[in-house]
């Protein structure tokens, strides 16, 4: 089993993430799409590190990707909750001003 099946799976994850990020109008749904894209990237790192260069740098990169995704989710959801308190809406098109 070569690298091709992993590339196909991670491509489908990436496609679904991009579709979610562009098609949805809900800010939290867009965050779900970002998580999918980050997972596709981490899966690519781990797959290429097994089949191409045989060291574990890719694993370390995948760990850092998971870390950054967790931090991004925390701050992003805090911003979403604050935005909902101010605007009573989570439509992406109603986020047009930096200051309420």
């Amino acid at each position, binding site marked *: 089993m070569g690298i091709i099946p992993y590339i196909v799976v991670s491509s*489908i994850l990436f496609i679904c993430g991009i*579709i979610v990020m*562009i*098609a949805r109008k809900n800010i939290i749904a867009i965050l779900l799409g970002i998580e999918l894209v980050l997972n596709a990237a981490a899966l690519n790192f781990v797959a290429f590190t097994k089949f191409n260069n045989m060291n574990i740098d890719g694993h370390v990169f995948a760990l850092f990707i*998971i870390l950054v995704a967790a931090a991004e989710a925390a701050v992003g959801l*805090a911003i979403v909750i604050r935005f909902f308190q101010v605007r009573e809406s989570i439509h992406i098109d109603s986020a047009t001003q930096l200051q309420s």
Partner: protein
Amino acid sequence: MNMFLMIIFTLSAFLAVGGALSVAFAKNLIHACVYLLFSLIGVAGLYLTLGAEFVAATQLVVYVGGVVVLLLFAIMLTGGSNLHHVTSRFGLESTPLMGNLRTYIMGIVTALLLIAVLCNVLQGSISASAVVESKFSSTVEQIGVKLVTDHILAFEISSVLLLGALVGAAIIARPYRSSETEN
């Protein structure tokens, strides 16, 4: 042994791909979040077949235990999924804020363009990859040594990043009224 790996790969790939497609096309936001959970579990299984047990465990702990629960909390704090379907004049049902046919077409076109570009970029690496199954395993010890020798700067910076994210999230999401009384 190879057969076992094949079964795990098939199950995990099915879970990951099906979960991702369901996230993309689910009508209900909470359902999409739960499908994301299945997709993340599938990706953890794929890590297992790639010999990355520690990354798989971290994926399960951080994503499935942390991020998805956080997303569910945020969905419920912002009103949950108010399900009043809107029927357009063509008889198509749609849920507000979850996209319509036009935005889906735009998303699919953009994703296919990006995938075409990425395939062009990655062509050399994919064709240069080894097809033979090499004996490859990574232990927690190896990853730990790597983290505190080669990647020590990124390791330390990531601790500062986590602290900043924690404090920043707590400050941003504090109750709305207290900021008015302070000012």
